[in-house]
């Protein structure tokens, strides 16, 4: 059985975009009330997520947030304990068997004693129709190392090989689980350039990452997950807007936390010994209060960086006032 070149691919695929009036079409991925527990450990605690064809979505969160568990369920590698997962309206395993969805996994999944070209040929044999192996190797940039044994390839080369394998069935949906882990800066840039070209041609791409800048640079939509739940879901710029908050820092003994929290726009108040840090949207009001009503000194006002916003949203210790909850409701796309 030889891989077949399918003339269907010859035509240009239009970029499908989320938009008004398109809600009737079948979503690429649809998670409804999905939970997954391993014994008493709840890895995914109720995720509802709908991804439209053509979207490039970053699944952003710290290690252990449930990203890989969720991706495994979308690939049909494991079944949810509760809720339903459909891919293009069908059970994940059916979508995989039809070559609708493929994935680049985090690590492993390669045989050391096959060559790069043999690995691609092996994978091509598994599908009814694929892109020509030479073409996917070219696109993944591994043509030159085709005759090299997989065991002798670097981490980045192996990752590009996984990418080539994932491209073979010309999937509608491509899932990438922390695809650039262990790659150097150069390798990372090259890898994303290839993915981006692909996404521009209309493919739906979902990638898991804990690199904020990756999500920011390459995704149209960012889904923040923490402890098995979606804590924010919006465009990269919406997520950035969340970082528009400020912190006001001052030296002050005997802070009246309640009075500070009563000021409109204050999210959270932290005290460390004689210093106080106030997270807020209206720093002027806080500064005015501190300078006029209290003996505060050494006042500093700073804008929150993306990194801080990320930590605030996904950090292991949720803020007492539920800053993340507020942010989530603020940025969740109206549906």
């Amino acid at each position: 059985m030889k891989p077949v070149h399918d003339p269907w691919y010859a035509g240009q695929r239009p970029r499908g975009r989320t938009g008004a009036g398109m809600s009737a079409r079948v979503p690429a991925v649809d998670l409804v009330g999905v939970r997954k527990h391993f014994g008493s450990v709840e890895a995914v605690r109720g995720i509802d997520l709908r991804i439209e064809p053509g979207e490039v979505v970053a699944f952003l969160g710290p290690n252990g947030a449930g990203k890989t568990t969720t991706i495994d369920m979308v690939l049909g590698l494991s079944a949810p304990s509760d809720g339903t997962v459909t891919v293009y309206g069908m059970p994940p395993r059916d979508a995989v068997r039809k070559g609708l969805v493929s994935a680049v996994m985090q690590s492993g999944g390669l045989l050391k004693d096959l060559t790069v070209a043999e690995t691609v040929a092996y994978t091509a044999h598994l599908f009814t129709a694929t892109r020509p192996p030479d073409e996917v190797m070219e696109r993944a940039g591994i043509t030159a190392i085709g005759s090299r044994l997989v065991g002798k390839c670097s981490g980045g080369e192996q990752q590009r090989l996984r990418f080539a394998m994932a491209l073979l069935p010309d999937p509608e949906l491509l899932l990438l689980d922390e695809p650039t882990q262990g790659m150097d800066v150069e390798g990372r840039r090259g890898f994303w350039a290839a993915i981006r070209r692909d996404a521009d041609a209309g493919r739906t791409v979902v990638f898991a990452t804990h690199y904020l800048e990756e999500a920011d640079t390459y995704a149209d939509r960012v889904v923040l997950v923490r402890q098995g739940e979606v804590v924010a879901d919006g465009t990269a710029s919406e997520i950035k807007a969340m970082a528009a908050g400020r912190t006001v820092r001052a030296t002050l003994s005997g802070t009246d936390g309640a009075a500070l929290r009563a000021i409109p726009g204050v999210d959270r108040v932290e005290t460390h010994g004689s210093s106080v840090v106030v997270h807020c949207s209206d720093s002027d009001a806080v500064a005015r209060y501190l300078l006029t009503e209290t003996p505060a000194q050494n006042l500093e006002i700073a804008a929150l960086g993306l990194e801080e916003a990320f930590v605030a949203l996904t950090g292991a210790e949720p803020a007492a006032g539920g800053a993340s909850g507020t942010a989530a409701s603020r940025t969740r796309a109206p549906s």
Partner: protein
Amino acid sequence: MTVPTTTGAPRADRTVPPFGGFSPGLVRLEVRRLLRNRRTVIFTVLFPVFFFLIFGLNSAYASNRIGRGNESAFIMISMALYGAVLATSSGGAMVSVERLAGWSRQLRITPLQPAAYIAVKMATSLVLGLAAVLAVYVVGILSHKPSMPVELWVATGAALWVGSLLFAAFGLFVGYLLPSENVMQIIGFALMLFSFGGGLFIPLSQFSHPLRVLATYTPLYGLNQLVHYPLVQGSFAWTWVANLLAWLVIFTSGAIWRFRKDTDRV
């Protein structure tokens, strides 16, 4: 052919491969991979030939008559069986290394069905097994020592080749049971014990009585007696068939049990 539409709907012409993804091309790639492993080839193809040259050509007994042939032919059959079961069990045990490498998991995100994967492994094992059998038999022909009617060369060779599939199930079982790079050493040792128990290396008549009784319960005993029967003739014992079937059930159900566990977990 479907025309691309702006709805981004998946192509209607996408199909699921027949036979769960099993194809001769896969077997070819797997065989090439197996042959690349020099240690496997030496153990399964060269060792049995080597053993035959040592034990099967000894002029002290090689030409002694046994049934419809001679002792050299008897030993040749034993050594070919040894090679064939080594080949099929190593083929089966490859799943161990592949699971460790995450390859089984990678295959789960392709259309290949788990049962078809096992079929590919079985077919690959049989190809290597055939190489092992042919190597011993060809050396046998060239040495001019083994003697039996032509149809018995074919009959015994075919019987032991097909019978060696029993040990593909054994290899799969052990491969799923022990996820370790060292699984081949364990299998090699087990097969050595089974071969003594089955009477492949030393005639069972030279064992003490309790050992001889114990030996009749080991996995290679029934198969070894059966593949020698066309040559040896004489009385046929149904206990050989019982032994073969019992171990077939044990290895196959063991392999299926571990395989199910594995596909649940992956």
